[in-house]
Structures are given as C-alpha cells and as structure tokens.
C-alpha cells in the first residue's frame, strides 16, 4: 500500500522497521494531494503544495516526520492563516498556536497548505469559505460537512495522514461523520486554544480528525495539556490515551437519549445507529434509554451564545493591525471600519455578528442572552444527571448523511438544524467522538457519536475502539 493510504501509527511502525522513510511519506502524500485535490478541494492556497514535502526537523518525538494538516483558523508562524475569509487575506501569524508548537515538538511536519473551512468556522457545510466549497470524497456533489470540512475531506480522501480541526457546535464531529472518519471534540479546557482564532470562546475546542481511533488517541496525547497562555486550559494530568484502547465494553452502561430519535432523523441513519447499538450490546455493553429533556432548546441557546461571543471576538478585525482594508476613500475611522467589514465579511459572518450584537444590545440582553445562559445551565444539568448512572451516551452524530452542495445555503435555519445532535456537547463542555458506523443506500458514510462526562476521553476511546475493531467501516475507502 502506498504511504498516503496508511494511518499514522502504521507509518510510525514502518519507519521504525525501516520499511519506509520520512521523505517517502512526504513525497507520497504530496503526489496524492496534487492528484486528487483539484477534485476534492480540501486544501486552500494549493500553490503552497511545493512546501508540503519539507523534511522533518531534528526530533525523536512520536510523530517524527508524520505530516499533519491544519485548519485555516489555527495560527502557524509565517504561514498564511486566513480563516477562509477575505477580511484576513494575506495574514501570516507572527507565532505558532500552542497545538502547533506541541506537534512540532513531537516531530510532526506541519503542512504549509491549510485545510478549507466555513469562514471563521461559521457553518455546517464548508460552503461559506471565500475560496469556494470543499467536496465530499464519497460523492463530489455533496458537502463534506463543516466547519472543519477541509480537514475531514482531506483525511477521508487520503490526502492527509492526520488533521486538526476546531469544534464550536459540531465542527469536527459532523464533518467527520459526513466523510467517514474519526473526529473528537475534547473536554473544554483539555486542549489549549492559544493561537486558535476565536469564534465563541466558551465553546471552542481544538481536536483531531483521523483515519482510526488509535491515531486520534496519539494526537490527543500530543496536543492535550495545560498552557499558561490559555487561562481556560485545565491543569489536570494528561493520561496516555492509547492505554484506553482496550477491546472491552463488558458491563459498561451506555445511555441512549430518546430525544435524539425524533422527527428529522433520517430513517436510514436511525436503522444504522440501532445496528451499532446492537453491536455494542453483543459485545457486552448495557444500552438503556435515558432522558435529556432540554435537548430541543440546544440550537436556539447556541445561536444566541455563539453569535454573542462571535460578535465580540470579531470586533478585532478593524483593518489596522492585519488583514484586508477597504480600497475606497474614507472620511474617518468609523467609515473605514464599516466599509472594510461590509466588504470583508461573507454573508454568514455578517448575519452572526449582527444577530450576536442584537442579543447583547440594550433592551434585549435579558430576553435573549441572559435567558440563553440560564437554559444552558439546564442543558448541562441534564447531562450531569445521566452521567451519575451511565458511563457514556450514544447518539447519531447528525440527523442525515451528507447533503447536496447548495441544498441549504438559502435557509440559514435549516443549516443550523443539521448540528442539532452535536451542539449540546459544546454547551455542556463535555467530550465527544464521532466514528464511522455504516453507509446509506447511496454509499454515504454515517457517524456514531459517543459522549462522556468532563475529562472522560478515555471512556470514549475505550468504547469507540472496541466498536471500531469489531467492525470494518473504517477500512472502507471512497473511490476517487
């Protein structure tokens, strides 16, 4: 098998056994990207592809010479980081995000090509990118999901060995599900957000997108941990997540929330998830119905809190220190801001900034923002209650498989509802993983989502790995 098709742990083993070299891995991946990315468009600024084969530095770390693909909203020193937005065009960060530093310290090769995303991570389909949409490797007419659609499509298309994304309301898990790969949103505070261009600071987390659960565990080992540069990162010891990859779920109690199996769930997805539940039961897990009564309020709560935080975070794009500035002649500073931001932000960014500003404005704050924060508490309490008795929760990752490009672009509300199963996790700050669990009749992947209590990543790896190793879904590849 050519190097680009292998997982990181297989490549690490092959390098150690002298069956391949770091140079061969880089060349193999570069060739693959140049061949298939004109179809998939997982990466942006493809002209940087030449540097994709930069040899690894001096390191004996676990990821020595393993290429890692990075979402366009994570700062890489001297390498364009534009959040796929016109307003950040040309931005080359003067520093590395903490996750990038950790990856480099572990020996990884950071691709200079970045992966495509919805502008500022605002979206669920990667159609809101100023570079145009990414295509789903399983069906080029379909979206890869979003906002980390480029990272998910790159891994799904074997155009990446490992990828990093960010997840504010499902932006790692939903595209992972659509592209048939593994994606984890860690507990809030598990991974440093320093150098992640902020969308909603109380919800954002960086996480891995990989070909299997072992690679996700390896990446989590590298990127997790406390960082003095992020005061919300938690100073708790990082376990060796690969040790949680046991093939045993006997006696574990898995809750299945009935609120996730209601109208809107595609019957094919429902059947596939039910088969996954039966599989886990046959492996010895105990699956029982549970209640998360405030589930239906998660989307409205999210679109107040996330947009309110975004409206504040995106105030920094003022055409002074970095990014785009209007070419029009302006009379004063305010006019420069208004014109620059009117021209530089895409439709979804404008919609969210204005909605968030509205929710925080005088006269509406109590009715919208404060109310949303209180309902957020209730959503979190629902989970606390279930985790008193259960080891994890199992749900579909998304109500449907990948939808067609253009299908939901004119109806923002319809687009927002495609995150209905992933959003509560961010509001509650808990960890979750999505992994492949089957295919629809149209050969589109379906994802299984597992949720655990805060810092329960080991439980997620244990259950996910057991399921994965007893099924073949993760081995099936798209024809490109």
């Amino acid at each position, binding site marked *: 098998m050519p190097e680009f098709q292998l997982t990181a742990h297989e490549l690490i083993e092959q390098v150690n056994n002298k069956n391949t070299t770091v140079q061969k891995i880089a060349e193999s991946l570069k060739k693959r990207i140049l061949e298939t990315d004109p179809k998939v468009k997982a990466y942006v600024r493809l002209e940087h592809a030449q540097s994709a084969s930069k040899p690894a530095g001096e390191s004996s770390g676990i990821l020595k010479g393993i290429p890692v693909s990075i979402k366009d909203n994570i700062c890489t020193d001297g390498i364009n980081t534009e959040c796929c937005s016109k307003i950040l065009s040309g931005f080359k960060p003067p520093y590395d995000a903490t996750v990038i530093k950790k990856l480099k310290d572990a020996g990884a090769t950071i691709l200079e090509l970045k992966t495509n995303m919805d502008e500022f991570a605002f979206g669920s389909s990667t159609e809101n990118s100023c570079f145009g949409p990414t295509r789903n490797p399983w069906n080029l007419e379909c979206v890869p999901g979003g906002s980390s659609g480029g990272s998910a499509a790159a891994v799904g298309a074997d155009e990446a060995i490992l990828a990093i994304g960010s997840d504010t309301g499902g932006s790692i898990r939903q595209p992972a599900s659509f592209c048939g790969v593994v994606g984890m949103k860690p507990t809030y505070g598990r991974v440093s957000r320093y150098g992640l261009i902020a969308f909603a600071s109380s919800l954002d987390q960086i996480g891995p997108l990989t070909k299997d659960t072992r690679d996700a565990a390896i990446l989590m080992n590298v990127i997790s941990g406390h960082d003095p540069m992020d005061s*919300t990162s938690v100073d708790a010891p990082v376990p060796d997540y690969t040790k949680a990859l046991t093939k045993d779920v006997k006696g574990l109690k898995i809750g299945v929330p009935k609120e996730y199996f209601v109208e809107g769930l595609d019957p094919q997805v429902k059947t596939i998830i039910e088969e996954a539940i039966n599989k886990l039961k046959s492996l010895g897990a105990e699956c029982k119905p549970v209640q998360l009564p405030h589930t239906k309020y998660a989307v409205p709560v999210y679109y107040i809190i996330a947009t309110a935080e975004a409206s504040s975070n995106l105030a920094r794009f003022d055409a002074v220190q970095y990014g785009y500035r209007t070419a029009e002649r302006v009379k004063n500073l305010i006019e420069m801001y208004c014109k620059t931001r009117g021209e530089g932000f895409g439709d979804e960014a404008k919609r969210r900034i204005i909605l968030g500003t509205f929710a925080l404005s005088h006269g509406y704050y109590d009715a919208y923002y404060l109310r949303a924060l209180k309902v957020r508490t*209730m959503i979190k309490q629902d989970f606390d209650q279930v985790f008193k008795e259960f080891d994890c929760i199992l749900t579909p990752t998304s109500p449907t498989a990948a939808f067609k490009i253009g299908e939901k672009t004119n109806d923002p509300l319809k687009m927002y509802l495609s995150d209905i199963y992933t959003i509560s996790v961010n509001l509650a700050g808990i960890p979750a993983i999505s992994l492949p669990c089957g295919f629809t009749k149209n050969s589109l992947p379906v994802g299984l989502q597992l949720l655990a209590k805060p810092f329960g990543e080991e439980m997620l790896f244990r259950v996910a790995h057991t399921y994965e190793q007893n099924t073949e879904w993760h081995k099936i590849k798209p024809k490109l």
Partner: protein
Amino acid sequence: MSIISKETVQYVAHLSRIELKEKELEVLSVQLEAILDFIDQLKEIDIANIPPTSHILPVNNVLREDSPKPSLPTEKVLANSPEKEGNSFVVPKVIE
C-alpha cells in the same frame, strides 16, 4: 408580528461596524426575523431560580506572576498591517 424591523437591523449593523447594501439589509431583516422567531421558543421554559452559565469551568481570575518578558519585535508586529509608516500603524484622521 415583526420582532426586528429593517431600522433595527440597520441600527445594529452600525453598532457592529458593518456597512450593508440595501439588498443585504432586506434579506437579513427577513432571515433574522425567522431566526429570532425560532429562538423565541426559549420563552416557554421556566427559568426562575436557574443560575446562568457563562463559562463551563469553575475557574476564576487565573493570575500569573507580573514579570517582564520580551515581546514581539516591532517589525513582526507591523508586518501584517495594511498600511504602516516607520514604527506606526497608519489610520484615517481621527481628530478634526
């Protein structure tokens, strides 16, 4: 009933420092109306005695030692600026 008028959207857009074209203003007013209408289902929940959650972790006021450290060199700070002169960012005239 209209929750959000065109005038309100225009006003909030200005607060957000975003200039909207007439067409954008029209589309946005309709879309925001629908989104807020959807969000209004939150009004059916009894939130009495429920504390707000603005942050999921019980951490407050994380402080570090106030010790001097090197900062980014001026060239690096200015490198991304759309307009600069000497050691400064250039902006339109602020004082009349």
